[in-house]
């Protein structure tokens, strides 16, 4: 019965077209253009790994796509154009230490409009049953990460934007995330992840931020 709710959510996803595209994107941080001329498009069941050295703008790109930062130039097309379409997971998990894992997860589920069966499904996917009633600040880093990423498994968002999702996870849990990702992509979702490690999950596309480093020197712009 629990699985049934989830299957419904997933099949809704496959039916609706999902697009995440950017055209000629550039970003500035601290008075410096860090990347420019970035274009790509992802559609149903496509995923992309964002790689590149430190400071090349991986996190900046993901935060722009999640709507946390403004790009300097370029257009972003997100379809469905709905705030709930995107689920973002950054370096920090956003867990409230004073709340139990279950309470944390249920809050996000309510906010994203996911029903109770979805919460139980997410708990199952991340194998959180044993820590469900523990306050989140008693968890180790790896457990926190798992509890934080369980938000993805609620199944409401069709576009996942993950910044270094594998941090602090052991191989078993890396595999768990991989399964989560591939299920999501297979059922029609889009996933975008910035990562150093090459995971078991193989994204359909790959973008190296080093290729989009700003080529034109800054000088002339400030030369007024």
């Amino acid at each position: 019965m629990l699985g049934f709710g989830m299957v419904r959510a997933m099949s809704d996803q496959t039916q609706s077209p999902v697009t995440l595209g950017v055209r000629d994107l550039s970003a500035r941080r601290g008075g410096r253009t860090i990347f420019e001329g970035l274009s790509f498009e992802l559609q149903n069941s496509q995923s992309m790994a964002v790689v590149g050295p430190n400071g090349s703008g991986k996190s900046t790109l993901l935060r722009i796509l999640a709507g946390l930062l403004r790009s300097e130039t370029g257009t972003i097309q997100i379809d469905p154009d709905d705030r709930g379409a995107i689920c973002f997971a950054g370096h920090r998990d956003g867990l409230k230490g004073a709340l139990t894992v279950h309470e944390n997860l249920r809050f996000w589920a309510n906010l994203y409009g996911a029903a109770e069966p979805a919460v139980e499904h997410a708990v199952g996917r991340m194998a959180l049953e044993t820590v469900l009633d523990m306050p989140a600040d008693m968890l180790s880093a790896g457990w926190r990460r798992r509890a934080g990423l369980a938000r993805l498994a609620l199944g409401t968002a069709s576009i996942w934007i993950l910044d270094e999702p594998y941090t602090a996870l052991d191989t078993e849990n890396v595999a768990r995330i991989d399964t989560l990702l591939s299920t999501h992509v297979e059922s029609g979702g889009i996933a975008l992840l910035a990562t150093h490690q090459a995971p078991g999950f193989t994204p359909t596309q790959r973008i190296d931020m080093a290729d989009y480093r700003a080529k034109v020197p800054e000088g002339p712009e400030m030369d007024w």
Partner: protein
Amino acid sequence: MNTFFILVGRDLRLSVRHRADTVMVAGFFAITVILFPFGIGPEPGVLERVGAGILWVTALLASLLSLDHLFSDDEQDGALDLLLTSPAAPTVVVAAKIIAHWLTTGLPLTLLAPVLGITLQMPSSSAAPMMTALLIGTPTLSLIGAVGAALTLGARRRGILMPLVVLPLYIPILIFGVGAIDTTGMGFDAGGLFAVLGGFLLIAAALCPWAAAAALKIASE
């Protein structure tokens, strides 16, 4: 609207878990008020005359101190990023946090004020206008203070910066809050003054969530 209550519920649940925070704010309020008789002297006429002012100034400071972690907790553990990328509109997030803040600080201060008024030898007839004034005025403090808290998020020396930014904006509420209590105490009708306080509340409620949400977006950049 449902989103709003989910967010308020979460912050209330958190402050129940961290109930020491609310107790600390109330404790700060009480100890600071009690300092004044030592500073001014316990003569009945004097304390009674300045009582409303002491209570309001102290309430401003207590509200301000508690605003310090209104957004910073969520900012530090990453929840703020997730809230801002969630289906909830940023203004709704801000408005919910402000309501929750008021319920856990402004409201307790309002309830505590008459008790502290007794220690300042204020007549028992002043309790009703005092609580009314605080009831209308303290939400405005939370609203304006939330803008200050959002603006100073990530700033250096935030503890000193916040008062400098926020306290000048609190002055109108202080003036009319004290005015309403004193005018009633002198036996006049202060209905107009309560209406002005209500007007401030409406203006603040209309503008502050937007300003604070804009400030939060800047802070998350």
